[in-house]
């Protein structure tokens, strides 16, 4: 299974290498979202600084949406789905592989956004361990859930529009948890944050296991 995962992840990353989508398009988009918030929420009110945790994660969420969409546009290309189902790859492997590829890209996005938030919204960084742990857990969760729902939307020609409304509600716990954890970390009372981080972790594990098991069935629904 892990061999298959590696195969799929490798394939996706090679495609990224050739098309440079994340590098040249998703990352700038991330910065753009930060600026849009800045423009929309009049900076002088200090909303930005106080709400930076929330805004950060909303931005991550939108970027994740983009990355996941991209990951399944690749597969949806003509007959890709049938091909995958016939491939002999273990569904679990496909799931893990794509999740891994997505997670890798999300990590890059988060790193950039973190820098952006610190610089643009003037947030002071405290409680780094909690922040990092939160990012890891949240990323895993988003990638897992995203892959799961991405494959549902893949192959449908309404992918771009369907995926968001499938995915966002599912990810809202991640949004809440991560925001809370970040606020705790930035507020300096990391203790309040860890339980949220735990929530994220369970969410991630839940979706990873469920996805690994259920992906086969999902590939069925063509």
């Amino acid at each position: 299974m892990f061999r298959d995962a590696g195969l799929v992840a490798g394939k996706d990353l090679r495609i990224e290498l050739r098309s440079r989508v994340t590098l040249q398009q998703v990352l700038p988009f991330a910065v753009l979202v930060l600026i849009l918030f800045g423009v929309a929420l009049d900076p002088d009110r200090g909303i930005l600084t106080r709400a930076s945790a929330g805004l950060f994660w909303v931005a991550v969420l939108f970027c994740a949406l983009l990355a996941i969409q991209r990951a399944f546009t690749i597969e949806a290309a003509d007959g890709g789905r049938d091909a995958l189902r016939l491939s002999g790859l273990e569904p679990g492997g496909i799931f893990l592989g794509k999740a891994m590829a997505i997670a890798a890209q999300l990590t890059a996005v988060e790193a950039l956004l973190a820098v952006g938030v610190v610089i643009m919204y003037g947030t002071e960084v405290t409680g780094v361990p909690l922040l990092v742990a939160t990012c890891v857990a949240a990323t895993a969760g988003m990638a897992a859930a995203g892959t799961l729902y991405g494959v549902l939307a893949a192959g449908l020609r309404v992918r771009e529009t369907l995926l968001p409304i499938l995915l966002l509600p599912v990810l809202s716990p991640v949004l809440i948890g991560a925001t809370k954890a970040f606020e705790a970390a930035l507020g300096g009372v990391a203790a309040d944050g860890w339980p949220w981080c735990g929530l994220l972790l369970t969410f991630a594990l839940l979706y990873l296991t469920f996805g690994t098991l259920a992906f086969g069935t999902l590939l069925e629904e063509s």
Partner: protein
Amino acid sequence: MEPAVQLRGAVTLLGRFPALAGIDLDVAAGEIVLLRGPNGAGKTTLLRLCAGLLPVARGTATVLGHNLTDRRQARSLRRRVGLLGHATGLYDELTVSDNVRFWGRAAGASSEDIVGALAACGLDGRLADLAVLSLSAGQRRRTSLACLLARRPELWLLDEPHAGLDQDGRDLVDGLVHRAVQAGATVLMASHDLDRAEALADRVVTVVGGTTTAGAPGAGPTDAAPAAGTPAGGVALVP
């Protein structure tokens, strides 16, 4: 020796529409069977059914000993069949060789198999490193053929295998099919290019209106049935 494919009154729905309305079909192992019939008759659907990609709504379907009414068996069948369909399932951004390698590896093919498949389909040289999106129609076709070849399937399901290929492309296909059969594979193909296809096939089955029997469904195997409403009759050619 068990038949490779055995369908009895198989019905398959696409949406609400019974694209297959009672198919009876027997294909012995090592046989080359041609499906013919008008557009929309259900040939492609039938092939996808035999690949385990579509559920059986009614009747029974057994392929390579897998009972397709059971989802789990249907799924385990898939890695044993190879489908050359209208859609290619290739990754446009990747090169020809990357594609063949990926799909080959996925099915556990060795590097030799993969290189061999590329060469056999005339895809070595310049084309190997070309992104699929810049291929011509026939070159795409050859690429998916190479992917199928690299997987070494036991049951070949070919949907219009000759379409879009030039003359030696077609000879190539015939050659590959013959070699596959010698290696013990079974071939079920749909085609409108009757002269070539009938020459290649051991047996011709006519599909009309989602049935193998022109008209009343479920009337037993119809390998030598009169090919209702199709120009040249579906006569059984035994080479």
